[in-house]
């Protein structure tokens, strides 16, 4: 499955804000994914998400793609923003709001 990396790259490039998580924002399956989704929802913009529990290839592939060993992972404008800790820190400091507001603005 070499093309799982291509699939992920396409998802990340085609969505200004995309969260890889366990479960869905409505029904998160992990506390870390839940907190990340809630913080992101709190920024008031729609975002794409991928439930990695639906696809074992994505679940493993995203770790390689992001060079990041854990889930959730948030990408904005094609860049890895971070996992749960970083998302929460940025949410509390207001940086996440700024990053979300800037999504889709870059060329």
């Amino acid at each position: 499955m070499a093309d799982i990396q291509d699939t992920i790259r396409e998802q990340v490039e085609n969505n200004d804000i995309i969260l890889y998580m366990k479960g869905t924002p409505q029904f998160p399956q992990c506390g870390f994914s839940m907190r990340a989704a809630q913080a992101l929802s709190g920024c008031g913009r729609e975002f794409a998400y991928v439930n990695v529990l639906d696809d074992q290839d994505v679940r493993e592939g995203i770790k390689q793609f992001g060079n990041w060993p854990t889930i959730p992972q948030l990408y904005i404008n094609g860049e890895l923003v971070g996992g749960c800790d970083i998302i929460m820190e940025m949410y509390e400091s207001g940086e996440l709001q700024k990053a979300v507001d800037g999504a889709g603005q870059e060329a």
Partner: protein
Amino acid sequence: MIRQRLQTALAPTHLEVHDDSHKHRGHEGAKAGGGHYRVVIVSDRFAGLNRIQRHRMVYDAIGEAMRADVVHALSIQALTPDEPR
């Protein structure tokens, strides 16, 4: 083991490793047996690096244990000595 690896790899001036596994007993992710840990680490080596880079250094230091699911979840606070905890 986590403490030792971080100590060796990052020469921290302050290091806390908390095992929070008991708070997560029974939940789905904990079934594989991996622990939930929380790390507060202060090191000069983080100077000039952004959050992603700092967290990657911590993940790299812990290495195999992270991938082998010995560590299921790791919460990280990575600071330099002049940043407030």
